């Protein structure tokens, strides 16, 4: 799949994962990396940018096995953004599906 295309939808993937509950960096990178063929390293710059833009906040939480982990929690602004992107995504895929199916001319 096209790299640019994948990177564009990463934001939606991360926001949607966090909508299900707070997660730490590795969980996010691992979940996305398993489904989408992309360098997991590019999740972290994305997380940093989205945090700077106020879509989520971070907190430290002790882990049973090692040092404290950095957890990400969606803010209300983040929830809005996720809904917005999800809407755009559905609209976009519907249009593309219509082209593929030959319904749109």
């Amino acid at each position: 799949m096209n790299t640019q295309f994948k990177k564009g939808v990463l934001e939606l993937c991360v926001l949607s994962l966090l909508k299900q509950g707070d997660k730490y960096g590795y969980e996010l990178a691992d979940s996305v990396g398993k489904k989408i063929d992309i360098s997991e390293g590019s999740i972290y710059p994305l997380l940093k940018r989205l945090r700077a833009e106020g879509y989520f906040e971070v907190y430290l939480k002790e882990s049973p096995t090692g040092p404290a982990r950095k957890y990400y929690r969606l803010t209300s602004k983040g929830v809005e953004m996720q809904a917005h992107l999800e809407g755009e995504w559905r609209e976009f895929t519907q249009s593309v599906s219509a082209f593929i199916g030959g319904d749109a001319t």
Partner: protein
Amino acid sequence: MTDMTKFEFLQQLYDHLSSLPPSERDDIVADFEEHFQVGEEQGKTEEQICTELGNPYACALQYLRGTGGTNTSAPQAAAQNTAAVQPPYPQKTAASPRPQNAAPAPHINERRNKTLWKVVFFISLVCAIGAYPAACGLMLIPLALIVSAFFLIPAVPGGAMVGFLISLGVLCFTGGLLLFLVMTWLLRLSFRRSGL
């Protein structure tokens, strides 16, 4: 890139982030350290995690551009980086229009700094062509003095000449060594700072 260790990955990431403030840099590296930590707890090897993470340079570039996940891929980025070296006045590329999402000012500064260091690097590279042979020559002068002293001393009366030759030799050798070290230091520094 596949057989990289955790240390190499973090080191390269850290090096490429040299233009960021130290606290931010440490923060970013800590995120990746945590990733390695958790990955190893889950039974992955360092090499495996590195492969999944991808190129540290590509990661660093995304931080520097403030465009996490939305912009360039690694090969393009590398191509842009080498392309910036080619023009004789690379400062111009710093002002080229480029989509910027956040914090444009430090990012332009960072690019200008890098291009400046590149200029310094190439100037010192040109200087080095002359400086290294000169340094070697200077360091060899004492040898020449010793050889000539064998023939000269019997002919010249008094010990004054010997003292003079010794101090001249030491001076030349120190000068040559200094030139050599300064040149090497300048080359290394500008090479690192320019991120070539």
